[in-house]
């Protein structure tokens, strides 16, 4: 099934301060659902967008805690499931099991971090939003979803901010 195009305006910028001006201007006009493309993360763009901090950390924390618990639970349970008494020493000994619990903390924490990155990145669908391959090279892109009647005003704002190319999509 063909992806439905999201109507809006796509602008391409060479200069970072021009892109930041455009983001600030668009937000002041009430456009919040912007998609900004860049080849590398940039602090000025982050500051202009002012997004809340990513929730990936929660996935990392939960993964780490689950891994640690699983490590101790598995080793202690398996030790008592087939108890082997050697030299009168305790059967379940948490100290050597720290090695296993530590490794599983790191393993589960890492895998959950990656799962969190994928889930949260896909939470905002980019399907149908215009993209230009130059954005992975040296240009900064801003896609503004808007109704066709708003497109001329958005186009004007982006051009005024310093965009080198503005195109209207899905009109």
């Amino acid at each position, binding site marked *: 099934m063909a992806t439905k195009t999201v109507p809006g305006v796509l602008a391409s910028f060479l200069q970072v301060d021009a892109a930041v001006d455009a983001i600030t201007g668009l937000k002041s006009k009430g456009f919040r659902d912007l998609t900004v493309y860049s080849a590398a993360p940039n602090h000025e763009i982050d500051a202009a*967008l002012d997004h809340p901090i990513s929730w990936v950390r929660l996935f990392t924390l939960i993964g780490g805690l689950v891994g640690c618990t699983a490590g101790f639970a598995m080793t202690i349970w398996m030790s008592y499931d087939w108890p082997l008494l050697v030299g009168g020493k305790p059967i379940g000994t948490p100290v050597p099991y720290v*090695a296993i619990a530590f490794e599983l903390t790191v393993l589960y924490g890492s895998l959950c971090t*990656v799962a969190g990155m994928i889930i949260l990145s896909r939470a905002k669908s980019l399907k149908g939003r215009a993209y230009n391959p130059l954005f992975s090279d040296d240009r900064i892109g801003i896609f503004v979803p808007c109704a066709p009647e708003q497109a001329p005003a958005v186009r004007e704002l982006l051009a005024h901010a310093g965009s080198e190319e503005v195109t209207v999509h899905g009109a």
Partner: protein
Amino acid sequence: MTAIVHEPHRPTQTHAEVTRDVLGTLGTPSRGYYMALFGAIAMFLVGLFTFVMLLKEGLGLAGYTPPVMWSVYITTFVFWIGIGHAGTLISAILFLFRSPWRTVVYRSTEAMTVFAVMTAALFPIIHIGRQWIFYWLLPYPNARFLWPNFKSPLIWDVFAITTYFTVSTTFLIVGLVPDVSAIRDKVTGWRHTIYKMFSLGWTGSDNQWRNYSKGYLYLAALATPLVLSVHSVVSWDFAMSIIPGWHGTIFAPYFVAGAIYSGIGMVLTLLIPLRKVLKLEHMMTDYHFDNLAKLTLLTGSILFYAYAMEYFVAWYSGNAFEQTTFWRRAFGPMWWAGWSMIICNAFVSQLLWFKKIRTNLTALFIISIFINLGMWFERYVIIASSLSNDYLPQAWAVPAVTWADWGILIGSFGWFFMYFLLFARTFPVVAIQEIKEMIPYPRKHGGGH
């Protein structure tokens, strides 16, 4: 007045030039590349043939000589595990320290880590003899309701290496995604289709970067303790036993320093020819190699201290078994291995105090070969030499090294180089996105690049 600050870590190219230069490394390979690749495949085939013979005839083909039942294979296992550590140090620890010089070299070192651990993982399987039941090492419900002994460092090692391999591979793949998308947008045809598949829908949107940057940071934070833990656990395979020469509390830090030292040695062995073959001289400069050499000097000096401490503790302990072991390391039947280890690691690394040597790539390459040799010998001395003279003098024996030992050792280098060479022509060996992050975007009224 504006101060002119020399920033050797800051790339001089524009964003577009970075993409172009790195893309250039993925073009049609040179004859030298093919020769290296065929050489690696030939070496791998030698190892494969030897492995088939081991399967057919059994471990008797290898030079196991009682009481030395851990010999070349376990030595080579520890060697390859150690090689991986420099990759994680450079990609994770130096990332957390915001060390700018790592940016150009970390991708290839990270790939080196993954391939080194893949190589190392073969050895316990080869060594156990009955390779078809290797999964007995894993905790799974079996017919006799038995579970592994979690008090054994060998089982800790299974978990440590499985975790290390999984996390290192994940870290490498996550780092590659934005770079693969940059290549996807530049190539056409079937290459576009393949890179599109590997780019996982990456577009570099603000939402993707927001989650990616945080996730990468947490992955680096999780990978960091692995640098210290994995080789500590490997060292406990030995230190937890009472064999003279093994039973030392110094083993964990001693092994970690050695692992990083050997890893950087391999990084130098790989990167010095690679920068020439891939024409990356303007990206990987003397500045990067100077920093790598300083890390080598630091870890080499720690090793020097550890060697001295081992001998001192053996003498100071007054324990006859320890003293005999260390006396025999220097003057016994395996003296050649003991002195190779000390000369190649402790002494050769001290040459790097001189800046002229640190910035001379030919000298660095030669030193890196000595490091690789020295670190293999270090493990051989620790493992085989210690086992050769335990508590029963009448059982003492010098291990033999047979063609089956050599075949597997050569094959492991072939297996490692084959993967590394294939990686270097398929994926960017220099991290496009991180280099671009260091280059300021242009500004309306000048500035930037």
